[in-house]
C-alpha cells in the first residue's frame, strides 16, 4: 500500500540499482580489487618465485624504512615532481595570460603548444633522449654553436644534470595542460570588474594578484594536484631517459616499485612501496580538499 501510495512498483525501484550493477562490477574488478589486493600483498612475502601469500606483518615496511635507497627515492620523487609542477604553473600561467590578450597568430600558437600535450608520452621521451644525447644531441650542438657551452654537457649521465633534464622534460610536457585550463578560467573573470579596477587606478600587477588570481585559484590548485598525481605515476619518461640513474639520482617511487616487482621479483616489497606512495598522495588529496573547501566557505 505504501509502495502504491508513492506511485513506484518494486521493479521501478530496483531498476536503477540493476542498471548500476555492470558499472559497479567493472569498477570493483578494475579499481577496488587491485587496491585491496595490493594493500594485502604488502603484508606478505609474495614473490614470483614463491607465489604464496605468507603473512609477515609489517616486516616489508620495516625493511623499507631502513633502506637508504627508499629515502633517496622518496626525496627524488618529491623534488622532481614539485619542481616540475612549479615550472609548469609558471610557464602555463604566463602562456595563458599571453594568449588571453590580442597577439598575432594566437590560434596557431595555441594549437602548437597544445600539440605537445597530445603527443604520446613515449614518443616525447624518445625525442628528448635523442636531443639530450651528450655526443649526438642537438641541444649540445645548439649550445656550443651559440657559444653558451664550450664542451658537451652530459645531460643524462650526471646526477644534477639528469635531474634538471627530467624536470625540464616534465615541465615541457605538462605546461600545455596548465595553459589550457588557466586560459579557460581566465575567460570567467568578469571584464566589468577588471575595467572598474583600471578606472580606480589599479596597475597590472595589482589587477593580477587582487582580481585575477582569486578567480582562477581553484583551477590552479586543481591543475597542480592533477599534475602531482600524474608525475608521481610516471614511469615512461624516467625509464627512457635515465632508467633511474645515474646511480639512484632519478629513481622515483613508480620506477622503484617496478624494479622491486619485475627485476627483484619481490611483489610484497613492491606493494609496500606502493602503499607508502598511496598514503602520501592521500594526504595530499586531503590537503587539497581542505584548501578548496576553505576557499568555498570564505566565498
Amino acid at each position, binding site marked *: 500500500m505504501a509502495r502504491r501510495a508513492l506511485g513506484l512498483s518494486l521493479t521501478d525501484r530496483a531498476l536503477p540499482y540493476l542498471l548500476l550493477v555492470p558499472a559497479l562490477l567493472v569498477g570493483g574488478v578494475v579499481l577496488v580489487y587491485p587496491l585491496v589486493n595490493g594493500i594485502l600483498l604488502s603484508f606478505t612475502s609474495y614473490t614470483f618465485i614463491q607465489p604464496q601469500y605468507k603473512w609477515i606483518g609489517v616486516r616489508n615496511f620495516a625493511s623499507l624504512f631502513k633502506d637508504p635507497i627508499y629515502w633517496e627515492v622518496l626525496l627524488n620523487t618529491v623534488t622532481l615532481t614539485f619542481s616540475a609542477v612549479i615550472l609548469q604553473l609558471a610557464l602555463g600561467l604566463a602562456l595563458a595570460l599571453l594568449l588571453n590578450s590580442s597577439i598575432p597568430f594566437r590560434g596557431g600558437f595555441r594549437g602548437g603548444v597544445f600539440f605537445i600535450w597530445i603527443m604520446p608520452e613515449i614518443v616525447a621521451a624518445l625525442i628528448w633522449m635523442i636531443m639530450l*644525447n651528450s655526443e649526438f644531441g642537438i641541444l649540445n650542438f645548439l649550445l656550443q654553436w651559440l657559444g653558451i657551452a664550450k*664542451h658537451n654537457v652530459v645531460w643524462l*649521465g650526471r646526477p644534477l644534470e639528469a635531474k634538471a633534464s627530467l624536470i625540464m622534460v616534465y615541465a615541457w610536457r605538462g605546461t600545455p595542460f596548465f595553459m589550457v585550463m588557466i586560459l579557460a578560467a581566465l575567460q570567467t573573470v568578469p571584464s566589468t570588474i577588471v575595467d572598474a579596477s583600471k578606472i580606480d587606478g589599479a596597475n597590472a600587477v595589482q589587477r593580477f594578484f587582487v582580481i585575477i588570481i582569486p578567480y582562477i585559484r581553484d583551477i590552479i590548485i586543481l591543475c597542480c594536484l592533477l599534475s602531482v598525481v600524474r608525475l608521481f605515476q610516471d614511469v615512461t619518461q624516467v625509464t627512457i631517459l635515465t*632508467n633511474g640513474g*645515474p*646511480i639512484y639520482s632519478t629513481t622515483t617511487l613508480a620506477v622503484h616499485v617496478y624494479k622491486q616487482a619485475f627485476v627483484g621479483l619481490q611483489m610484497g616489497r613492491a606493494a609496500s612501496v606502493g602503499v607508502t606512495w598511496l598514503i602520501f598522495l592521500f594526504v595530499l588529496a586531503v590537503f587539497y580538499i581542505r584548501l578548496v573547501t576553505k576557499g568555498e566557505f570564505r566565498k
Partner: protein
Amino acid sequence: MKRTLLVTIMLFAGFALLYAGGAQEKAAGEAAGPVKVSMSSWMPLQEVSRDMMLEIERRFEKTYPDIDVVYVDMPFEQRIQQTLVSVSGGNPSDIIHLTASDPFQLVAMGAITDLMPWFRDQLDDIPDGALRTGLIEEQLISVPLQLGTIVVLGMKKNLKAVGLPERIPDNWVDFKSAVRKISALSEKHYGFAARTAKHENSAYWFFPVMYGHGGDFEDADGKIVFDSPGNRAALAWYREIGTTKQTPMGMAIPESRNLFAQGSVGFLFDGPWMLPIMRNQSGKGEGIDPEYTAAPFPKGPDGRSRGINNNHVLVVSKQSKVKDQAVTFIKFWSQDPEITDFHFSKMGAIPAYKSLQARPTYSKLHDLTRAAIEGAETSDGAPSKNPQFSAAKEFIAAGMQAALLGGDPAQIAAQTDLAIRTLYGQ
C-alpha cells in the same frame, strides 16, 4: 519501466550469446588444422630481422606442414618481465627466446621444460661455455640458438694514430694504456665506449673488466665475493676512465655502438651481431669491414682470457602442450644447415653447434666472427645462476656508475657486496 527492464535483460542475453558463440568457434578452430606452436621473440618485431624470421617460418611450415608457428612479439628490453608475467598468468608461449643469463628466474618458478631427452645426443656438439649456461643439476634448461660471445672490437685507424699495431692488445695493461692514448688524440675521441647507462646490461658488460683484474662475482660455492682486490681494481679503472673522459657517460648499447661505428672510439665490447650493425650504422656498408678488428678479451693476471657471452637461447615452457613440435622448430632454426647459413648471411649469427661452424660458410670470416667462435669456449653466459641475479646486476650498475662519477672503489665494492649478499640471503 517494464519495457526498459525487458530491453536491458535482452541486451545482456544478446551479449552472453555472442560471447558463447565466439568461444565455440574458437574451440572448433583449435580442433582442426595444423598444430600451433607459439614463440615469443624480439626478432620478428625488429625491422632488421623481421623479414628473415618470416622467411624462416615459411620454410619451416613448408617442411612441416602439420605445424603452424605463431610469433608473439616481445621487445628485447622487456623479455624477462613479459615472460614472468605470462608464466604467472598461465599463458606463456611454447618457445621463449631469451639470452643466456635470463632463464634462471623461470627455473626457480618451475616454468621450464628439461630438454635433455631431446638433446642428450648433441651435448658434445655444443661449446663448453654455452653448455655450462644451459645445464643445471643434469637438467638442460636451455639450448643455444646462436653464439653471442662478447669480444673486444677495435677501430684500426685509432690504433694506428697512436702508433700501436692494428690488433687488440692481449693483456689488460696494454689495453688500458691503449685506451689512454686514444683518448688523448682529441676531445672528440674516447679510448673505450663503456656501457655507462643505468641498466643491468651495463653491469653485465662490466664483468669482463672484473675478470681481467682478477676479480669475480661469486666463488665455486656460490658465495658472493664482490668485495675483492680484483673488483676494487676494476672499479678504480672505471673511476679513471669516467673522470678523465676516456669513456663517454650515460651511454646505453645503441649509443655506444653508434659512436664506435662513427670512428671516434678505440674499443668496444660487443658480439658477432655487430657485423651487420656496423655496416648499417657506419653508412659504409661492407666497406666498414676492413676498418675494424676484434679478438677475445685480453688475458687477466692469471694468464687466462675470460669473457662473457650473451648467447641467444631457446627454452620450452613447462605449460606447453606441444613440446615435441616446439623442439622440432628449435632444431630446424638452430641446426638446419641451410637455415643457419641463411641466418648468418642476414644477421651475422654464428650457429651454436661446432659441427655447423666447420662448414665452408664459416671458413673465411671477419675477425669479429672468428673471435666469437674462439672465445666461445672460455666465455660465461651466467656468472650466477641465482634467480636474483638480475636484481644483483642493478646494484652492480649503480656501483659502476658511482665509480665512473668518481666514487671510492673500496667503499663501492663493500656497499655493493653487502647489498647483493642481503639480496641472496647470505
